[in-house]
């Protein structure tokens, strides 16, 4: 599925991003724009590397707070700003792993490779694909958006969602189906 995506961010965007970074460095109130641009990327990067949503959220929060605090030290050297964020994220993952190991020193974490943090390089294509998909959810019709969020984020059953939205279970399944179809069409259409 990822292979369908066009190549990674085209070069002209880097100039825009550089301006956004400079604007945030001169006035941190402009950090919002960088946050909006990269939130989904950082979240997805971390979410794939930890085992639960709460940890992904804690680490995402840590990454953006550190990025904001250290923005003045960031120097543009041609690499995307996201690369800097992923480096902070990788460090946050490593630190989190160390903390977890200290808290449970007697566990078999060290022997179990599954418990080591995944510090492999981010796959920019997969990250962009997911970030784009997550943002498209925001643009679904309100009721479809709600069904998607309740189903995939809250992991509610169709019956629960039907009760909350005062609709039949069949109607919720249809809404879910139409939402996914719409997302697929937009992803293939390349709009974001």
């Amino acid at each position, binding site marked *: 599925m990822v292979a369908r995506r066009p190549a990674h961010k085209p070069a002209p965007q880097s100039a825009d991003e550089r301006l956004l970074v400079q604007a945030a460095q001169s006035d941190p109130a402009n950090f*919002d724009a960088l946050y909006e641009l990269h939130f989904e990327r950082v*979240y997805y990067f971390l979410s794939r590397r930890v085992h639960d949503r709460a940890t*992904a*959220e804690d680490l995402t929060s840590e990454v*953006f707070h550190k990025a904001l605090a250290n923005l003045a030290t960031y120097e543009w050297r041609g690499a995307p700003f996201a690369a800097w964020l992923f480096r902070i994220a990788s460090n946050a993952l490593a630190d989190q792993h160390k903390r977890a190991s200290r808290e449970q020193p007697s566990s078999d974490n060290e022997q179990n490779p599954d418990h080591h943090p995944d510090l492999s390089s981010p796959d920019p294509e997969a990250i962009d694909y997911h970030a784009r998909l*997550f943002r498209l959810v925001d643009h679904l019709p309100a009721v479809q958006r709600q069904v998607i969020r309740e189903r*995939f984020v809250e992991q509610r*059953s169709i019956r629960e969602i039907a009760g909350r939205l005062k609709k039949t279970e069949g109607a919720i*399944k249809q809404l879910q189906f139409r939402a996914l179809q719409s997302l697929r069409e937009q992803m293939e259409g390349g709009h974001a």
Partner: protein
Amino acid sequence: MPKRSPAVQLDRAIEAMLAALQPQPEPNPSPALAQLMPIARALRDLPRPDFKAALKSDLQRRISMNEAATPAPESSKAAHFRRPNFPNIAPYFLVNGAPQFIDFLVSAFEGTERMRVPRPDGSIMHAEVTIGNSVIEMGDANEQYPQRSMTTHLYVPDADATYARALEAGATPIYAPTDEHPSGDRWGEAKDPFGNTWYIATRKSAVSAPEGFLTVQPYLHLRNAHDMIPFIEAAFGARATGVHKSPDGIVRHATIEIAGATFEIDEASGESQLTQSYLHVYVPDTDAVYAQAVRAGATGVTPPSNAPYGDRAAAVDDPFGNTWFLATYLGAGQP
């Protein structure tokens, strides 16, 4: 077995995916199933929209709080209307036991007493203590100006050391400095023996500017803080430089600048109990600001007059219960 609709087939596959179960094979799979399941799998990592909004809000709050600590521009610090060595909006503490309060400030915050004007009965009419690069003023409370519990935000080089000294000097701990404060600063809180709260912070990093922050910022917890902003803009020509609101419009933090000096506000709630403060602010023209403030809804307390210490001075109460001592420096030697 009748063929299930594509929507039902899709939901069965999603249900199995979410429960981490092997899906039952569909006897007559819809082509849509193979097309949509990759999207469904990707949506498992969909972030919570509330989290995205909350983190954004945290970051904005942190930016707003950092702006609070940014020094006033050099030009305004040297403004002619402000008494020399008076860069900040000073919290004016009227306490029962001003001499002891001065001792506390000296011991707890390494303050330096720079002025003391006693009354004949030995009580203190006016005193000034410098802390870092800022000024705190005080006097003994009286019938007209009773003691009030105020909150002050201090930026110090080492929050832990200052916090420890404050406790040694008689303050009661609220909480010890921690790195977990939403401002991003190392931050602890303590209450002095006079009922005032002190936010003791050390910057862990510089977002806006690397050095030169004002040490003292009055911090007002208000009821209907959102109404303070238009009032203070109209009354004192203030400027809100960083306003962070919750989605329902409650002011979580704002930095307000008057004539180049700043203070902070937020909505009183929980541990941040409503404060009513005394504040001393230098403005370019006390008479004009006094008239403007009264037009905006303030209550005149003392009309403008030339004070013996060389200021054009006046006082007003704002609608939020705070008293503002307005002043314009007339220059050395001018009564």
